[in-house]
């Protein structure tokens, strides 16, 4: 497999009236062809902003990509002109969002919205594009697809709108699909429908995928690799088996410990992470998790406050260099 996307040292800030928001503070990762990366983290941890940045979609002002490179198939996306970027968006990289109503135009029929992109990117005429649009809706499980082309978004349920978004996203066979909380607003039964659908389509199209969510359960079932974000930085990243089965970062460990399990009776008390998520208007000199970290407290690690731990291969990684984390301590050994 070869590298499809290579993000290096991405820094994004927002200059607002309430001060500078340090949204993404040096994020680097690679994605291989056909691979699924799950990005998890709490609200405000920089998941959406980092993916918007690589699509060239940061609103500016107030936002600014301060530094970084985003290499997609050999080109640096951050240096492309807006109209060059527009050709890549939708065609080679597609994105689906949490709330389909914000990305579907309420006054245009579903058919118009899907055929628009087919005409732009694939040069199809009206009848060709309508035929293809109906096929796509059929593929994502919308009954009576040809007739429904002339319906408006509000005539579809939430789950069906998300299917329409997926159909639109896949219309030009993208190499990369970025899905930002695509099932968060949906019921679990509908979420399960969508996840099954995406898994099946991903194999069919051999797409790579970035799946953004705060639900660790969802990525456990869908992602090859997991990246845990906190305070605009990557805390830990590795294969899903490594991150779930052998988590090494105090934050990942804390998150997993705080989750109740569906498959076992919940007698014990949940372990809780104290404190609250960081205010992104302060750029921490050291580790962003330091104020809440019980490992730091236990080991009395002063450097956590003023030195940023680099993202490095975890100690005793079992020969696998892809399992990385950003922490001064080694929780397996209890030493720093």
């Amino acid at each position: 497999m070869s590298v499809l996307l290579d993000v290096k040292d991405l820094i994004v800030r927002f200059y607002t009236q309430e001060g500078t928001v340090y949204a993404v503070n040096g994020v680097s990762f690679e994605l291989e062809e056909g691979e699924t990366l799950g990005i998890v983290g709490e609200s405000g941890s920089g998941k959406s902003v980092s993916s918007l940045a690589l699509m060239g979609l940061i609103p500016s002002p107030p936002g600014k990509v301060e530094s970084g490179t985003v290499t997609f198939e050999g080109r640096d996306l951050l240096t492309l002109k807006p109209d060059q970027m527009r050709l890549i968006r939708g065609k080679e990289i597609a994105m689906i969002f949490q709330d389909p109503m914000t990305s579907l135009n309420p006054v245009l029929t579903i058919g118009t919205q899907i055929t628009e992109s087919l005409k732009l990117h694939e040069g199809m005429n009206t009848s060709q594009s309508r035929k293809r649009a109906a096929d796509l809706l059929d593929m994502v499980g919308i009954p009576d697809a040809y007739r429904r082309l002339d319906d408006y978004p509000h005539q579809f349920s939430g789950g069906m709108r998300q299917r329409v978004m997926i159909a639109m996203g896949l219309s030009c066979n993208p190499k990369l699909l970025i899905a930002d909380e695509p099932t968060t607003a949906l019921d679990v039964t509908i979420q399960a429908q969508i996840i099954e659908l995406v898994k099946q389509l991903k194999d069919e199209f051999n797409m790579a995928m970035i799946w953004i969510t705060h639900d660790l359960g969802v990525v456990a079932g869908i992602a090859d690799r997991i990246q845990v974000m906190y305070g605009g930085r990557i805390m830990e990243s590795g294969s899903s088996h490594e991150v779930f089965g052998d988590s090494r970062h105090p934050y990942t460990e804390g998150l997993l410990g705080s989750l109740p399990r569906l498959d076992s009776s919940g007698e014990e008390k949940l372990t809780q992470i104290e404190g609250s998520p960081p205010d992104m208007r302060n750029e921490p000199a050291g580790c962003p998790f330091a104020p809440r970290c019980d490992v730091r407290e236990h080991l009395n690690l002063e450097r956590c406050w003023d030195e940023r731990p680099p993202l490095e291969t975890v100690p005793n990684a079992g020969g696998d260099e892809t399992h990385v984390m950003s922490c001064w301590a080694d929780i397996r050994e209890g030493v720093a």
Partner: protein
Amino acid sequence: MSSQAMAVETRKNLDPNDVILEVTDLKKHFPISAGIVFQRQVGAVRAVDGVSFQVIRGETLGLVGESGCGKSTTGRTILQLYRPTEGSVRFEGQELSTMSGNDLRQMRRRMQIIFQDPFASLNPRMTVGSIVSEPLQIHRIYSNKQERQQYVEALMEKVGLNPYFINRYPHEFSGGQRQRIGIARALALEPSFIVADEPISALDVSIQAQVVNLMEELQDELGLTYLFIAHDLSMVRHICDRVAVMYLGKIVELGPVDEVYDNPQHPYTQALLSAVPVPDPQVEENRQRIIIAGDLPSPASPPTGCNFNTRCPVRFDLCFEEPDPPLIEVRPDHYVSCHRVT
């Protein structure tokens, strides 16, 4: 009496004093009106359509099901924030559905609600102190201002808020802290029963455990009874003693949590539980999902026969005939409403 009600009547070995709340054949229908000048009723949203259950003192009963199935409406109708269309709600031995005025106000002291959205449910122009003490003022408890302040400070301490912040406004607190304010307010009148309507859904994952642990501690300490409404089925298993699964305004399965989760009997419960992702890739790799097609039908025109018959993977002839399946005890304390099971 409906079959649901009869099924619950069969619960054995229960000291009537243990039952804090008894809901019988409760219905809440919202009228649908049409017409520009003369509004006339053209139909009804059958949000809650005949539910019966009991809540035992000191327990946590979970109420789960898809969006729009009637969970919040059930909670609000119990508290008489909505008046029932039909049916009875007995709380601590007294019938609420016919109660009004001062009697109802007095009963309401004993029952409180915590809402989902800590941002929307707190008045942004009131300080924490006045938010928490408002119920005390309404019910004229602690006319002495200083005593009242001491009580509010003690409450803040109890829910893990620093009393030092008593004069701050809601926007100065994080989501988890705001939910603590909502809990402190709910506790002010020393209720015995609390409806928690999605109390953690709007919170960050790392904050959810804090709030759930707090609710459990308060329950142990104060002997509270909870009706816990939630989407998160894993959290429901953790916090609840029993669970009721709702579908389209009706309870389709009811029983002790471990029993229902380990041995779900209703096809809807089976599908619902199988759809919940588990944060463990090894488990996920080997899971068999029951994918149910389609969406929840409209509660304004529910199907004839079993409510689940438009999506049920194992439906058969009988499922389309009226009356719909009764809720029947299939194992001790475990009730199911399905022709396949009973």
